[in-house]
Protein backbone atom coordinates (compact mmCIF):
# COMPACT_ATOMS: atom_id res chain seq x y z
CA UNK A 1 0.00 0.00 0.00
CA UNK A 2 1.29 3.41 -0.96
CA UNK A 3 0.06 5.47 1.94
CA UNK A 4 0.28 2.80 4.61
CA UNK A 5 -1.48 5.16 6.94
CA UNK A 6 -5.08 4.47 6.09
CA UNK A 7 -7.11 3.36 9.06
CA UNK A 8 -9.66 0.57 8.71
CA UNK A 9 -12.50 -0.29 10.99
CA UNK A 10 -14.60 -3.39 11.45
CA UNK A 11 -17.64 -3.67 13.65
CA UNK A 12 -18.49 -7.33 14.14
CA UNK A 13 -21.34 -9.03 16.00
CA UNK A 14 -21.79 -12.76 16.61
CA UNK A 15 -24.29 -12.90 13.76
CA UNK A 16 -22.46 -10.91 11.12
CA UNK A 17 -20.09 -8.12 10.18
CA UNK A 18 -21.93 -4.80 10.50
CA UNK A 19 -19.28 -2.45 9.19
CA UNK A 20 -16.09 -3.06 7.30
CA UNK A 21 -14.32 -0.19 5.61
CA UNK A 22 -11.94 2.73 5.65
CA UNK A 23 -12.11 5.34 8.34
CA UNK A 24 -10.33 8.57 9.13
CA UNK A 25 -11.20 8.47 12.78
CA UNK A 26 -13.05 6.05 15.05
CA UNK A 27 -14.58 7.30 18.27
CA UNK A 28 -16.02 5.09 20.97
CA UNK A 29 -16.22 4.71 24.70
CA UNK A 30 -13.84 2.24 26.26
CA UNK A 31 -13.08 1.31 29.83
CA UNK A 32 -11.61 4.62 30.99
CA UNK A 33 -13.47 7.11 28.82
CA UNK A 34 -14.01 8.14 25.27
CA UNK A 35 -11.29 7.27 22.79
CA UNK A 36 -10.63 8.63 19.32
CA UNK A 37 -8.42 6.46 17.15
CA UNK A 38 -6.44 7.87 14.24
CA UNK A 39 -4.11 6.05 11.88
CA UNK A 40 -0.93 4.64 13.44
CA UNK A 41 -2.46 4.28 16.86
CA UNK A 42 -0.48 2.11 19.26
CA UNK A 43 -1.73 -1.49 19.60
CA UNK A 44 -4.40 -1.54 22.25
CA UNK A 45 -6.94 -3.95 23.68
CA UNK A 46 -9.78 -2.84 25.88
CA UNK A 47 -13.44 -3.31 26.64
CA UNK A 48 -16.21 -1.28 25.00
CA UNK A 49 -18.99 0.15 27.11
CA UNK A 50 -22.62 0.23 26.06
CA UNK A 51 -22.80 3.33 23.91
CA UNK A 52 -22.02 4.34 20.38
CA UNK A 53 -19.29 3.92 17.83
CA UNK A 54 -18.73 6.80 15.44
CA UNK A 55 -16.75 6.16 12.31
CA UNK A 56 -15.67 9.37 10.61
CA UNK A 57 -14.88 9.16 6.94
CA UNK A 58 -14.00 11.92 4.54
CA UNK A 59 -17.50 13.14 3.87
CA UNK A 60 -19.74 11.05 6.06
CA UNK A 61 -20.04 9.69 9.55
CA UNK A 62 -21.46 6.30 10.40
CA UNK A 63 -22.90 5.90 13.86
CA UNK A 64 -23.77 2.61 15.53
CA UNK A 65 -25.53 1.96 18.80
CA UNK A 66 -23.64 -0.88 20.43
CA UNK A 67 -23.85 -3.15 23.43
CA UNK A 68 -20.76 -3.84 25.52
CA UNK A 69 -17.89 -5.83 24.08
CA UNK A 70 -14.25 -5.67 23.14
CA UNK A 71 -12.02 -3.29 21.33
CA UNK A 72 -8.69 -3.86 19.64
CA UNK A 73 -6.40 -1.68 17.56
CA UNK A 74 -3.42 -3.07 15.75
CA UNK A 75 -1.72 -2.29 12.48
CA UNK A 76 -4.24 0.38 11.57
CA UNK A 77 -7.22 -1.89 12.02
CA UNK A 78 -9.82 -1.06 14.64
CA UNK A 79 -11.78 -4.14 15.62
CA UNK A 80 -14.95 -3.71 17.60
CA UNK A 81 -16.51 -6.97 18.81
CA UNK A 82 -19.92 -6.40 20.33
CA UNK A 83 -23.02 -8.52 20.78
CA UNK A 84 -25.31 -5.98 19.18
CA UNK A 85 -24.73 -3.07 16.85
CA UNK A 86 -27.41 -1.11 15.01
CA UNK A 87 -26.78 1.67 12.49
CA UNK A 88 -28.26 4.84 13.98
CA UNK A 89 -30.23 5.74 10.86
CA UNK A 90 -31.95 2.36 10.88
CA UNK A 91 -33.25 2.59 14.42
CA UNK A 92 -36.92 3.43 14.67
CA UNK A 93 -37.22 5.76 17.66
CA UNK A 94 -40.77 4.67 18.52
CA UNK A 95 -39.89 1.03 18.24
CA UNK A 96 -36.82 1.51 20.41
CA UNK A 97 -38.93 3.39 22.95
CA UNK A 98 -41.52 0.60 23.03
CA UNK A 99 -38.80 -1.97 23.42
CA UNK A 100 -37.33 -0.03 26.31
CA UNK A 101 -40.71 0.11 28.05
CA UNK A 102 -41.13 -3.62 27.55
CA UNK A 103 -37.79 -4.27 29.16
CA UNK A 104 -38.49 -1.92 32.08
CA UNK A 105 -41.95 -3.33 32.69
CA UNK A 106 -40.83 -6.92 32.25
CA UNK A 107 -41.49 -9.48 34.92
CA UNK A 108 -40.18 -8.47 38.30
CA UNK A 109 -37.27 -10.44 39.65
CA UNK A 110 -38.48 -13.08 42.02
CA UNK A 111 -36.75 -12.96 45.35
CA UNK A 112 -36.34 -16.67 45.38
CA UNK A 113 -34.36 -18.92 47.62
CA UNK A 114 -31.11 -18.32 45.76
CA UNK A 115 -29.91 -14.79 46.42
CA UNK A 116 -26.99 -15.15 44.05
CA UNK A 117 -29.18 -16.30 41.17
CA UNK A 118 -31.62 -13.45 41.74
CA UNK A 119 -28.70 -11.03 41.71
CA UNK A 120 -27.57 -12.40 38.34
CA UNK A 121 -31.05 -12.09 36.87
CA UNK A 122 -31.22 -8.52 38.12
CA UNK A 123 -27.84 -7.68 36.64
CA UNK A 124 -28.85 -9.19 33.31
CA UNK A 125 -32.09 -7.19 33.26
CA UNK A 126 -30.23 -4.06 34.16
CA UNK A 127 -27.90 -4.64 31.25
CA UNK A 128 -30.82 -5.17 28.86
CA UNK A 129 -32.37 -1.96 30.10
CA UNK A 130 -29.17 0.01 29.55
CA UNK A 131 -28.82 -1.39 26.04
CA UNK A 132 -32.43 -0.42 25.27
CA UNK A 133 -31.91 3.06 26.71
CA UNK A 134 -28.79 3.48 24.66
CA UNK A 135 -30.68 2.52 21.51
CA UNK A 136 -33.24 5.26 22.17
CA UNK A 137 -30.54 7.80 22.99
CA UNK A 138 -28.53 7.09 19.86
CA UNK A 139 -31.64 7.11 17.67
CA UNK A 140 -32.68 10.50 19.07
CA UNK A 141 -29.24 12.01 18.75
CA UNK A 142 -28.01 10.62 15.46
CA UNK A 143 -31.04 9.07 13.78
CA UNK A 144 -32.89 10.52 10.84
CA UNK A 145 -36.20 11.21 12.51
Amino acid sequence: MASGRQLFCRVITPERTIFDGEADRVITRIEDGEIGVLADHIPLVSTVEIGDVRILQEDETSVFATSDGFFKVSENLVLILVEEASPAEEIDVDEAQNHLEEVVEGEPVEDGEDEEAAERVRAERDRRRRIAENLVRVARKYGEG
Partner: protein
Amino acid sequence: MATLRDLKRQIQSVQNTAKVTDALQTVSGVKFRKAGARVSQARPYADNMEIMMRDIARKASSKNPLLVGRENGASTVAVATLTADRGLCGGFNAQVLRKTIQFRRERGQDAELKQVASGRKGTAFFQFRRIQLEEVFSGFSDSPSYEKAREVGRYLTQLFENEEADEVYLVYNRFRSALVQQPVITRLLPAAPEDDGEEQQGEGPDVPFDYIPGTEEILQSLIPRYVETVVFQSLLESAAGEHGARMTAMKNATDNANEMSDNLTLQMNKARQAQITQEILEIASGAEALSAG
Protein backbone atom coordinates in the same frame (compact mmCIF):
# COMPACT_ATOMS: atom_id res chain seq x y z
CA MET B 1 -48.13 -64.41 -4.28
CA ALA B 2 -49.55 -60.97 -3.67
CA THR B 3 -52.65 -60.17 -5.62
CA LEU B 4 -52.89 -57.37 -8.12
CA ARG B 5 -54.93 -55.27 -5.74
CA ASP B 6 -52.46 -55.66 -2.87
CA LEU B 7 -49.62 -54.62 -5.09
CA LYS B 8 -51.49 -51.57 -6.28
CA ARG B 9 -52.13 -50.54 -2.72
CA GLN B 10 -48.50 -51.04 -1.79
CA ILE B 11 -47.27 -48.97 -4.70
CA GLN B 12 -49.63 -46.17 -3.77
CA SER B 13 -48.40 -46.14 -0.19
CA VAL B 14 -44.73 -46.19 -1.18
CA GLN B 15 -45.31 -43.34 -3.59
CA ASN B 16 -47.01 -41.31 -0.89
CA THR B 17 -44.02 -41.81 1.36
CA ALA B 18 -41.72 -40.71 -1.44
CA LYS B 19 -43.75 -37.54 -1.83
CA VAL B 20 -43.39 -36.72 1.86
CA THR B 21 -39.66 -37.42 2.02
CA ASP B 22 -39.14 -35.46 -1.17
CA ALA B 23 -40.91 -32.46 0.34
CA LEU B 24 -38.85 -32.78 3.53
CA GLN B 25 -35.71 -32.93 1.45
CA THR B 26 -36.61 -29.68 -0.30
CA VAL B 27 -37.42 -27.93 2.97
CA SER B 28 -34.21 -29.16 4.60
CA GLY B 29 -32.29 -28.01 1.56
CA VAL B 30 -33.52 -24.46 1.97
CA LYS B 31 -32.86 -24.48 5.72
CA PHE B 32 -29.47 -26.01 5.13
CA ARG B 33 -28.41 -23.19 2.83
CA LYS B 34 -29.59 -20.59 5.32
CA ALA B 35 -27.85 -22.30 8.22
CA GLY B 36 -24.65 -22.65 6.21
CA ALA B 37 -24.68 -18.93 5.44
CA ARG B 38 -25.14 -18.16 9.14
CA VAL B 39 -22.13 -20.30 10.02
CA SER B 40 -19.88 -18.40 7.67
CA GLN B 41 -21.27 -15.00 8.63
CA ALA B 42 -20.59 -15.75 12.26
CA ARG B 43 -17.02 -16.80 11.64
CA PRO B 44 -15.30 -13.36 11.77
CA TYR B 45 -16.56 -12.73 15.30
CA ALA B 46 -15.58 -16.19 16.51
CA ASP B 47 -12.17 -16.04 14.86
CA ASN B 48 -11.37 -12.62 16.27
CA MET B 49 -12.49 -13.62 19.74
CA GLU B 50 -10.24 -16.64 19.52
CA ILE B 51 -7.25 -14.55 18.40
CA MET B 52 -7.87 -12.12 21.23
CA MET B 53 -8.06 -14.99 23.71
CA ARG B 54 -4.84 -16.54 22.45
CA ASP B 55 -2.97 -13.23 22.51
CA ILE B 56 -4.00 -12.36 25.98
CA ALA B 57 -3.59 -15.88 27.33
CA ARG B 58 -0.03 -15.99 26.07
CA LYS B 59 0.81 -12.63 27.51
CA ALA B 60 -0.81 -12.81 30.88
CA SER B 61 0.78 -14.99 33.49
CA SER B 62 -2.69 -15.26 34.89
CA LYS B 63 -3.73 -17.54 37.73
CA ASN B 64 -7.38 -17.11 36.83
CA PRO B 65 -8.91 -20.58 37.23
CA LEU B 66 -11.22 -19.90 34.29
CA LEU B 67 -8.10 -19.77 32.16
CA VAL B 68 -5.61 -22.19 33.65
CA GLY B 69 -7.84 -24.54 35.61
CA ARG B 70 -7.79 -25.52 39.24
CA GLU B 71 -4.58 -26.22 41.05
CA ASN B 72 -5.50 -29.68 42.20
CA GLY B 73 -6.74 -31.01 38.89
CA ALA B 74 -10.23 -31.97 37.87
CA SER B 75 -12.42 -34.13 40.08
CA THR B 76 -15.70 -33.14 38.45
CA VAL B 77 -16.13 -32.98 34.70
CA ALA B 78 -19.17 -31.48 33.03
CA VAL B 79 -20.12 -32.55 29.52
CA ALA B 80 -22.58 -30.61 27.39
CA THR B 81 -23.89 -32.46 24.35
CA LEU B 82 -25.54 -30.64 21.46
CA THR B 83 -28.12 -32.65 19.53
CA ALA B 84 -31.09 -31.83 17.34
CA ASP B 85 -34.64 -31.41 18.60
CA ARG B 86 -35.99 -33.71 15.92
CA GLY B 87 -35.02 -36.95 14.27
CA LEU B 88 -35.20 -38.04 10.64
CA CYS B 89 -31.64 -36.96 10.12
CA GLY B 90 -29.77 -40.22 9.77
CA GLY B 91 -26.96 -40.88 12.22
CA PHE B 92 -26.63 -37.22 13.16
CA ASN B 93 -27.79 -37.52 16.76
CA ALA B 94 -26.57 -41.06 17.30
CA GLN B 95 -22.96 -40.30 16.43
CA VAL B 96 -22.64 -37.34 18.76
CA LEU B 97 -24.29 -39.32 21.57
CA ARG B 98 -21.98 -42.26 20.94
CA LYS B 99 -19.04 -39.88 21.22
CA THR B 100 -20.43 -38.55 24.49
CA ILE B 101 -20.83 -42.02 25.97
CA GLN B 102 -17.32 -42.94 24.92
CA PHE B 103 -15.95 -39.78 26.53
CA ARG B 104 -17.94 -40.39 29.69
CA ARG B 105 -16.49 -43.88 29.91
CA GLU B 106 -12.94 -42.54 29.60
CA ARG B 107 -13.27 -39.69 32.07
CA GLY B 108 -15.71 -41.41 34.38
CA GLN B 109 -12.97 -43.59 35.80
CA ASP B 110 -11.26 -40.89 37.82
CA ALA B 111 -13.75 -38.05 37.90
CA GLU B 112 -17.35 -37.40 38.76
CA LEU B 113 -19.44 -36.68 35.65
CA LYS B 114 -22.13 -34.12 35.09
CA GLN B 115 -24.22 -34.15 31.96
CA VAL B 116 -25.93 -31.23 30.26
CA ALA B 117 -28.10 -31.72 27.18
CA SER B 118 -29.16 -29.34 24.47
CA GLY B 119 -31.77 -30.64 22.03
CA ARG B 120 -34.70 -32.98 22.68
CA LYS B 121 -33.10 -36.03 21.08
CA GLY B 122 -30.16 -35.90 23.45
CA THR B 123 -32.41 -35.26 26.41
CA ALA B 124 -34.56 -38.30 25.60
CA PHE B 125 -31.47 -40.44 25.11
CA PHE B 126 -29.97 -39.60 28.50
CA GLN B 127 -33.27 -39.97 30.29
CA PHE B 128 -33.78 -43.37 28.72
CA ARG B 129 -30.36 -44.41 29.92
CA ARG B 130 -31.06 -43.01 33.35
CA ILE B 131 -28.17 -40.59 33.16
CA GLN B 132 -28.91 -37.66 35.40
CA LEU B 133 -29.14 -34.33 33.61
CA GLU B 134 -27.98 -31.17 35.36
CA GLU B 135 -29.76 -28.93 32.91
CA VAL B 136 -31.69 -29.23 29.67
CA PHE B 137 -31.91 -26.73 26.85
CA SER B 138 -34.19 -27.22 23.87
CA GLY B 139 -36.38 -25.61 21.27
CA PHE B 140 -33.75 -23.83 19.22
CA SER B 141 -31.61 -26.53 17.59
CA ASP B 142 -32.67 -25.75 14.04
CA SER B 143 -32.10 -22.01 14.24
CA PRO B 144 -30.16 -20.96 17.34
CA SER B 145 -29.99 -17.30 18.37
CA TYR B 146 -27.06 -15.72 20.17
CA GLU B 147 -29.39 -15.10 23.08
CA LYS B 148 -29.77 -18.87 23.57
CA ALA B 149 -26.05 -19.49 23.18
CA ARG B 150 -25.55 -16.86 25.85
CA GLU B 151 -27.91 -18.72 28.17
CA VAL B 152 -26.09 -22.01 27.65
CA GLY B 153 -22.66 -20.37 27.89
CA ARG B 154 -23.59 -18.52 31.05
CA TYR B 155 -24.89 -21.68 32.64
CA LEU B 156 -21.72 -23.63 31.85
CA THR B 157 -19.45 -20.84 33.08
CA GLN B 158 -21.40 -20.74 36.30
CA LEU B 159 -21.02 -24.48 36.79
CA PHE B 160 -17.31 -23.83 36.74
CA GLU B 161 -17.34 -20.68 38.85
CA ASN B 162 -19.51 -22.29 41.52
CA GLU B 163 -17.01 -25.13 41.62
CA GLU B 164 -19.66 -27.61 40.57
CA ALA B 165 -17.36 -28.57 37.71
CA ASP B 166 -13.59 -28.36 37.31
CA GLU B 167 -13.62 -28.85 33.58
CA VAL B 168 -16.34 -28.25 31.03
CA TYR B 169 -16.48 -30.00 27.66
CA LEU B 170 -18.69 -29.52 24.66
CA VAL B 171 -19.62 -32.39 22.33
CA TYR B 172 -21.22 -31.47 19.03
CA ASN B 173 -21.28 -32.23 15.32
CA ARG B 174 -18.73 -30.16 13.50
CA PHE B 175 -20.03 -29.12 10.14
CA ARG B 176 -18.02 -30.30 7.15
CA SER B 177 -20.58 -30.60 4.37
CA ALA B 178 -24.12 -31.78 3.80
CA LEU B 179 -22.77 -35.31 3.70
CA VAL B 180 -20.21 -35.14 6.47
CA GLN B 181 -20.71 -34.07 10.05
CA GLN B 182 -17.94 -34.95 12.39
CA PRO B 183 -18.64 -35.40 16.10
CA VAL B 184 -15.98 -33.54 18.09
CA ILE B 185 -15.17 -32.75 21.71
CA THR B 186 -13.75 -29.39 22.71
CA ARG B 187 -12.78 -28.11 26.11
CA LEU B 188 -14.64 -24.94 27.01
CA LEU B 189 -13.19 -24.39 30.46
CA PRO B 190 -10.52 -23.86 31.56
CA ALA B 191 -10.23 -21.75 28.48
CA ALA B 192 -6.47 -21.74 27.95
CA PRO B 193 -5.79 -22.91 24.41
CA GLU B 194 -4.71 -26.52 24.55
CA ASP B 195 -1.06 -26.90 23.66
CA ASP B 196 -0.86 -28.28 20.19
CA GLY B 197 2.82 -27.43 19.90
CA GLU B 198 2.49 -25.42 16.73
CA GLU B 199 1.28 -22.13 18.11
CA GLN B 200 4.75 -20.98 19.18
CA GLN B 201 5.93 -20.56 15.62
CA GLY B 202 2.52 -19.87 14.16
CA GLU B 203 1.37 -16.45 15.11
CA GLY B 204 4.19 -14.20 13.97
CA PRO B 205 5.87 -11.52 16.05
CA ASP B 206 4.50 -10.53 19.41
CA VAL B 207 2.58 -7.29 19.16
CA PRO B 208 3.12 -5.31 22.34
CA PHE B 209 -0.50 -4.49 23.10
CA ASP B 210 -1.53 -2.02 25.72
CA TYR B 211 -4.30 -3.46 27.83
CA ILE B 212 -6.75 -1.09 29.44
CA PRO B 213 -7.55 -1.53 32.27
CA GLY B 214 -5.33 -4.62 32.54
CA THR B 215 -5.03 -8.16 31.30
CA GLU B 216 -6.68 -9.65 34.39
CA GLU B 217 -9.77 -7.46 34.17
CA ILE B 218 -10.11 -8.04 30.45
CA LEU B 219 -9.72 -11.78 30.90
CA GLN B 220 -12.40 -11.77 33.55
CA SER B 221 -14.96 -10.41 31.10
CA LEU B 222 -13.47 -11.93 27.95
CA ILE B 223 -13.55 -15.57 29.05
CA PRO B 224 -17.31 -15.84 29.67
CA ARG B 225 -17.90 -14.05 26.38
CA TYR B 226 -15.48 -16.37 24.65
CA VAL B 227 -17.32 -19.39 26.01
CA GLU B 228 -20.60 -17.99 24.70
CA THR B 229 -18.99 -17.47 21.32
CA VAL B 230 -17.73 -21.04 21.13
CA VAL B 231 -21.15 -22.33 22.17
CA PHE B 232 -22.84 -20.13 19.57
CA GLN B 233 -20.52 -21.22 16.79
CA SER B 234 -21.03 -24.87 17.78
CA LEU B 235 -24.80 -24.46 17.87
CA LEU B 236 -24.73 -22.90 14.42
CA GLU B 237 -22.54 -25.65 13.03
CA SER B 238 -24.71 -28.27 14.64
CA ALA B 239 -27.81 -26.66 13.09
CA ALA B 240 -26.25 -26.61 9.64
CA GLY B 241 -25.19 -30.22 10.11
CA GLU B 242 -28.66 -31.20 11.24
CA HIS B 243 -30.29 -29.78 8.11
CA GLY B 244 -27.58 -31.24 5.90
CA ALA B 245 -27.95 -34.66 7.48
CA ARG B 246 -31.71 -34.51 7.17
CA MET B 247 -31.47 -33.47 3.55
CA THR B 248 -29.18 -36.41 2.81
CA ALA B 249 -31.29 -38.85 4.80
CA MET B 250 -34.46 -37.72 3.02
CA LYS B 251 -32.78 -37.97 -0.36
CA ASN B 252 -31.82 -41.55 0.41
CA ALA B 253 -35.33 -42.29 1.62
CA THR B 254 -36.82 -40.85 -1.56
CA ASP B 255 -34.42 -42.83 -3.72
CA ASN B 256 -35.24 -46.01 -1.82
CA ALA B 257 -38.95 -45.40 -2.11
CA ASN B 258 -38.66 -44.82 -5.83
CA GLU B 259 -36.66 -47.98 -6.28
CA MET B 260 -39.16 -49.92 -4.24
CA SER B 261 -42.00 -48.47 -6.25
CA ASP B 262 -40.26 -49.53 -9.49
CA ASN B 263 -39.81 -53.07 -8.21
CA LEU B 264 -43.40 -53.28 -7.10
CA THR B 265 -44.59 -51.96 -10.45
CA LEU B 266 -42.58 -54.67 -12.18
CA GLN B 267 -44.12 -57.26 -9.91
CA MET B 268 -47.55 -55.86 -10.56
CA ASN B 269 -47.06 -56.02 -14.31
CA LYS B 270 -45.93 -59.61 -14.03
CA ALA B 271 -48.95 -60.45 -11.93
CA ARG B 272 -51.22 -58.79 -14.42
CA GLN B 273 -49.55 -60.65 -17.27
CA ALA B 274 -49.99 -63.90 -15.37
CA GLN B 275 -53.62 -63.14 -14.78
CA ILE B 276 -54.25 -62.43 -18.46
CA THR B 277 -52.44 -65.58 -19.51
CA GLN B 278 -54.49 -67.51 -17.01
CA GLU B 279 -57.73 -66.10 -18.36
CA ILE B 280 -56.82 -66.83 -22.00
CA LEU B 281 -55.82 -70.31 -20.99
CA GLU B 282 -59.15 -70.84 -19.31
CA ILE B 283 -61.09 -69.55 -22.30
CA ALA B 284 -59.02 -71.59 -24.74
CA SER B 285 -59.34 -74.78 -22.78
CA GLY B 286 -63.07 -74.17 -22.32
CA ALA B 287 -63.51 -73.75 -26.09
CA GLU B 288 -61.48 -76.86 -26.73
CA ALA B 289 -63.58 -78.83 -24.32
CA LEU B 290 -66.74 -77.64 -26.10
CA SER B 291 -65.49 -78.50 -29.59
CA ALA B 292 -64.20 -81.84 -28.43
CA GLY B 293 -67.57 -82.66 -26.96
